């Protein structure tokens, strides 16, 4: 797998670092990591460059994760980028909402690095 650039959107800086570490532990070769503390910052971060993968929380101030995912197709570098949600909102209803909004994967917090690997690698490989 080629090196990839990743955008991690979460209002917790600790969680953003854990997600990055989990991706590296999954064997994903990361060239660049962009970080954002909410959906609006995430959309702004995309203007700095293209990314190959987005990992996104749901409950965040300013703009939540579902709104962010819905907005992606309307911004430069956002269209078609696969999104995996990583969130404490783990109900079936939230999963359906996220997938309907355009997310390709869903990981519930708390999680293990193995779960990140199992959910992210198929998404990067373009599998449904």
């Amino acid at each position, binding site marked *: 797998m080629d090196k990839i650039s990743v955008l991690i959107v979460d*209002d*917790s*800086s*600790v*969680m953003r*670092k*854990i997600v990055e*570490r989990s991706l590296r532990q999954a064997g994903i070769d990361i060239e660049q990591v962009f970080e954002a503390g909410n959906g609006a910052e995430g959309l702004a971060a995309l203007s700095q460059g293209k990314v190959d993968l987005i990992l996104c929380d749901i*409950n*965040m*101030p300013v703009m939540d994760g579902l709104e962010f995912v819905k907005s992606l197709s309307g911004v430069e570098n956002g269209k078609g980028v696969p999104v995996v949600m990583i*969130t*404490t*909102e*783990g*109900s*079936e*209803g*939230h999963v359906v909402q996220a997938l309907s909004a355009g997310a390709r994967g869903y990981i*519930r*917090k*708390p*999680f*293990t690095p193995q779960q990140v690997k199992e959910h992210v690698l198929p998404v990067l490989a373009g599998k449904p």
Partner: protein
Amino acid sequence: MNASDPNLAESERNESWTPLLKLASREVFELMLSSSLGVPPEVLTDQVLDITAMVGLAGHVCGIMTLRCTSQSAALMASKMLGVDVADAGPEMWDAVGEVCNMIAGNFKNKVTGMGDTCMLSVPTVITGADYSLHAPADSGKIQITLLFEESPLIISLEVND
């Protein structure tokens, strides 16, 4: 039994929710901090729990979840989550303890039948200092558990506004 039923008697609710809150807390610490929470002794050592993280619940069930611990425990949580020395984790401890409280609240509500879809969580807030009182509405019910994290107590409470 639908444990999120607001008509459920308080004692019944406490009986069914308390083990779920313990399980939710233990899972968060095991998965995210690689740490097993212990059972506290009957008499706790006198430690000042000067960090409080709070997450609000709104919807079918309304209330507030709090996690209280010492600042040393909060720094240790950040250290374990980030994989860095405690001395280097200090600036992140408020973020870490807030996120731990958030994950416990989310994990708990996902374990209570019917609560996952009908109850939203707020983003966490963290208070530093022990000299304060939390005033919940008069008709609120409370469940509280105490667990040991690396020999220091954690008090996790859920106050429900009926």
